């Protein structure tokens, strides 16, 4: 299995498309940080405008942490597209190239092949989020230094410098779990077709439809919300609440993990019975 996962990761990283995500994230983080470098004060002013009459702000509030928080919020909704580019190709790509025949003629079971590909896809998605974290926090603190993190949710919370890093690590882990669901869905679609375009479009369509449904403020759609995995994609923000809502976090972890497990199981079920005709 170790060999197979290594082989799958090697294949992923030998393809140009796998770097599109890393390049896009790098460029976006650079653009945001450059913009913040020049216009960050305005953003901070906007963020704290309701409090400026009452409070006097001091210290380095426009710091790497604030920018990393901003970047995570802004990009996490768009990263699914970058993830589907790779995960949608994991199985369909083999069919397109005709390499399924050769791969499945080896003495490795379909279970092993699906599991190794699935894990490689999850590792890729995880690495993409980690890259986002390392780059936005690393570059942010390098350019803007560190300091207290001011977060505006329902209330405004200021976290001390020493209390921030673990929240970011946890937030990135939860965000990567949410991306794991996207990866799993793209992987499932990838097992059904022989061209990667279909899984990419189908996954993105589902995400967009779910996001729209979540945004409609009618009772019927509100009742649907807990069943849409996209409802949990911003739950990483729970780590930046004035109080940590452990129950909500565990619920989010549970629902996202369940989605991943279901997508993997359905893919395995389909693939184990599939005639390879490509």
């Amino acid at each position: 299995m170790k060999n197979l996962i290594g082989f799958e990761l090697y294949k992923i990283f030998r393809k140009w498309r796998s770097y599109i995500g890393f390049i896009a994230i790098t460029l976006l983080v650079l653009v945001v940080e450059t913009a913040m470098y020049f216009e960050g004060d305005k953003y901070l002013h906007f963020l704290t405008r309701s409090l400026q009459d009452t409070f006097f702000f001091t210290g380095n509030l426009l710091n790497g942490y604030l920018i990393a928080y901003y970047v995570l919020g802004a990009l996490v909704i768009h990263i699914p597209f970058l993830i589907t580019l790779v995960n949608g190709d994991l199985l369909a790509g083999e069919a397109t190239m005709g390499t399924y025949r050769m791969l499945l003629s080896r003495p490795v079971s379909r279970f092993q092949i699906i599991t190794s590909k699935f894990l490689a896809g999850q590792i890729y998605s995880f690495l993409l989020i980690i890259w986002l974290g390392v780059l936005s926090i690393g570059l942010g603190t390098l350019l803007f230094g560190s300091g207290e993190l001011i977060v505006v949710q329902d209330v405004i919370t200021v976290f001390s410098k020493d209390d921030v890093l673990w929240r970011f690590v946890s937030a990135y882990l939860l965000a990567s779990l949410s991306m794991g669901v996207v990866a799993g869905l793209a992987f499932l679609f990838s097992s059904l077709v022989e061209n990667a375009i279909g899984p990419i479009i189908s996954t993105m369509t589902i995400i967009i439809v779910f996001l729209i449904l979540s945004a409609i403020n009618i009772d019927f759609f509100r009742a649907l919300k807990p069943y849409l995995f996209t409802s949990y994609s911003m739950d990483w923000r729970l780590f930046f609440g004035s109080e940590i809502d452990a129950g909500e976090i565990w619920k989010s972890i549970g629902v996202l993990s369940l989605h991943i497990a279901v997508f993997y199981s359905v893919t395995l079920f389909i693939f184990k019975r599939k005639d390879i005709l490509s």
Partner: protein
Amino acid sequence: MEKIIEINNLYKRFKDIMAVDDLNVNVYRGDVFGFLGPNGAGKSTTIRMLMTLIFPAKGSIKIFDKPLHENRNYILSRIGAIVEKPDLYNYMSAYKNLEMLGRLSGRPIGKKRIEEVLELVGLKERAKSKVKTYSFGMKQRLGIAQALIHDPELIILDEPTTGLDPQGMKEIRELILYLSHTEKKTIFLSSHILSEVELVANRMIIIDKGKTVVEGEVSELLKTPWIKVEIETDEPVRCAGLIKNSGWGTGFESVKDNIVTLNMEKELIPEINKFLIENSIKVYGLTPKRSLEEYFLNITEKGH
């Protein structure tokens, strides 16, 4: 004799098409077994079932005397195969393809073995080039290399000479004979070209519409003395006239470009060559032909 492949009452249907219909095949150790049939006869479907790529609707497959699906990994670790086109990872080198696929073969594959196999198929010089830069013939040879990398006992080759030039076809034939005679491998060779199989196989089966048409020793099945002969000459019209007005006339078939075609007994080829030369016809080539279609017609007419 030890049976290497034993297929019994195999069926496979794709919607309305019965691709394999009550097929029975036996391949013995040391055989170069020709698996013949026209395009769409069910050859590739059968090979896909042998490689567990598709699942039979009914019937049983035993390889190395073990049921295939219950012993899949054990059996596949002893088989090397090309199934249809030789599709490999285009963005990797030949060496890397073999290294990666070798690792999945259940046996440790070292650098020496990879180089040995690349040498055998004549790709050592281009080992580090990406596969996407290869010609079709080179990909075909690399396909054979990946089938051989783990030193399998049984080699399944699905139309290995498709798309190759005559020199390439000859090299593949020589490789098959080397693998059979020197390396003592059992070879299951699928083809739609009878003359190709005739040159290398000791036993064969012909299938059509998924059913067995005929099976047996190649020498026995092709014993029929009548074959088609193509005579290449720069005077085709005079040559045809001479043939028509001689004792060979009944077998005359056609004249096209510089080729005169006639049906005759194989043993008499030297005689007709002598006859034409005595009549001042320059003979540039005298090629016996036996197409699968003609063989089919022949055996169906005989009521097989």
